[in-house]
């Protein structure tokens, strides 16, 4: 088991290195000129050239990349020679727009994204897996048909539709919930966990409606298949209680595809739910990324892209480890 974990972690590091290189190359090859963007609209060619030097973009590609990677391990100096400023570790460069340390910007955005992702995740896992299991246990019944129907509707509702509808209903009409504020970014803040839940409840529901729909379908299909397996018949023929047969023997075997989905979705969501954050004005990673991309703020866009990739890769490794924990056959390889 230990070698399994070590090997997976090793491949994680290699993947991250590859992703950082590819991302960096892509942004270098991109059509936009970050120096011109950073300089502003009414900039003379001389000023653009100065900006280019100040941003270090006059350096050869590999020097720039090496500098960038060095910043991940230690503090470094950035800016034009003579006018350098310290970029503290972990240095992801400085924003072209505000000259702020990119790491600080990300550090500020992350709690919002985490808050949104965690609640939504819990909500859709419970509803998705719960309803999917219920539908599988009552296969063919009206309950099953209703749940499957609801899932079909849910999966076809995009976030802008559900999000705006929820806002309109609960905030504008019923005044049950406050409009999302960016003052609350964690349940441990001065406002307390209650306010945190109230603040993020609508984005959670909007995301959960979309995600639980596919979880219901995957859970239902896999559980129906698992309940038809020979080992379920064996469990029944041993005289085990229905609850033991369903959960201990059934769910554990049928849940693995859901674990895979869950891992991938967490990874994606932590990289920033762009639409949801826009609609609910949550200043998380997705929100920040959109604004950085529009204003050509290369270091911020680059850092968030890499972070998103990092989350997806880590989630993948976690899924692999979870698989090994659930299924002893995986540990063999």
């Amino acid at each position: 088991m230990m070698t399994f974990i070590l090997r997976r972690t090793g491949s994680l590091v290699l993947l991250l290195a590859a992703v950082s290189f590819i991302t960096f190359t892509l942004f270098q090859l991109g059509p936009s000129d970050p120096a011109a963007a950073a300089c502003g609209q009414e900039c003379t060619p001389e000023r653009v050239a100065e900006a280019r030097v100040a941003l270090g973009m006059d350096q050869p590609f590999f020097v720039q990349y090496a500098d960038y990677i060095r910043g991940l391990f230690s503090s470094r100096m950035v800016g034009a020679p003579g006018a350098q400023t310290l970029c503290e570790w972990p240095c992801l460069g400085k924003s072209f727009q505000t000259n702020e340390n990119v790491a600080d910007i990300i550090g500020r955005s992350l709690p919002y994204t985490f808050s949104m992702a965690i609640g939504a995740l819990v909500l859709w896992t419970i509803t998705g897996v719960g309803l999917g299991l219920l539908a599988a246990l009552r296969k063919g019944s009206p309950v099953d048909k209703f749940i499957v129907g609801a899932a079909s509707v849910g999966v076809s509702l995009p976030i802008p539709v559900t999000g705006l509808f929820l806002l309109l209903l609960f905030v504008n009409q019923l005044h049950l919930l406050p409009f999302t504020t960016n003052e609350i970014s964690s349940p441990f803040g001065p406002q307390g966990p209650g306010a945190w839940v109230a603040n993020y409840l609508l984005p959670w529901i909007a995301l959960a409606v979309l995600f639980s729909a596919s979880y219901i379908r995957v859970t239902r299909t896999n559980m129906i298949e698992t309940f038809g397996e020979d080992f379920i018949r064996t469990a029944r023929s041993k005289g085990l209680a229905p609850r033991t047969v369903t959960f201990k023997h059934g769910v554990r075997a049928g849940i693995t595809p859901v674990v895979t989905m869950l891992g991938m979705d967490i990874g994606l969501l932590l990289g920033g739910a762009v639409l949801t954050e826009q609609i609910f004005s949550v200043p998380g990673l997705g929100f920040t990324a959109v604004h950085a991309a529009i204003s050509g703020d290369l270091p911020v866009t680059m850092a968030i892209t890499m972070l998103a990739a990092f989350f997806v890769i880590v989630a993948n490794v976690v899924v692999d480890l979870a698989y090994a924990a659930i299924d002893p056959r995986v540990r063999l390889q």
Partner: protein
Amino acid sequence: MTQLNITAKKASATAGSTATAPFLEVRDLTVKFPTDDGVVSAVNGMDFSLERGQTLGIVGESGSGKSVTSQALMGLLKGTSAQVTGRAMFQGRDLVTLPESAMRPLRGRNIGMIFQDPLSALHPFYTVGHQIAEAYLVHNKASKKQARAAAVDMLGRVGIPSPEQRYDEYPHHFSGGMRQRAMIAMALICEPELLIADEPTTALDVTVQAQILDLMSELQEETNSALILITHDLGVVAEVCDNVLVMYGGQCVESGPVDEIFYDTQHPYTLGLLNSMPTLNSASSRLNPIPGQPPSLLDLPKGCIFSARCQYAELAGDGVCASQRPELRVEDGHGKRCHLSGPQIITIRNSR
């Protein structure tokens, strides 16, 4: 065979002694599955009985209703769309009408079951020992330690070497034969009085088959349990069974003591089955299959279920085989469901 048990019972009853019902008595057991295409008649009126210490072989080709019969007896069809009717008296209780809650304590404790493919029948995520101990813990008030000791002991009894270590291994660590031994250990850990083995050796190679059969006979003798052995392998039947029941299209077409089935065969289908077995000294190098296909269980023929494939259907005359379903006629414990008379059958046998 069925008749034999009934007459024996009547005789003892009239004699005024304490009459005991057969250990297991199945009467007119019928299983139907409603589907979108119609009702599938999987089992159509099975009758048999069984005493402790006896082995009954149920033989038939795929889809003849062997496994469904065993699942009906285990109550595994309860809670599904299957419609089970008839009677299956076991220790004074009717397994057909017994509710699931009353059936559950019997499963594993009084009726054990061994399945065909031990790899898919064992849970891949739990250790073999855990699964056996689990079966012990459902029916016995015991600590986990005691359950482990019982499971280790059982693993040893079914011939698994170093059971203490194998206890903590997973099914995929076991070979096919070892898995089936583990399966048998699981089915027998509570020492059930009735053991149903559904094609227990089909997934195993021949040398292992013999070991598993020996093991089952041995353990059956030790616990004096009744064994229902479901198989399509006539060689297996000849080796271990006391009585045989040949199934076709969800019906018993012939039943009786094993020697009579093999040497005084009364039904054309059984003859066909025996004939299709390759022998070492057969002159022909080709197999002798029974021509045709088994009938669709959605739409069984009005007459004899086997008539469409029976080479001797004309012999009975008047097209009776195609128009009239024969009854199971029992003479001296040997039952057959055929319109042909005894002498006709003997002529057919001799002509082969």
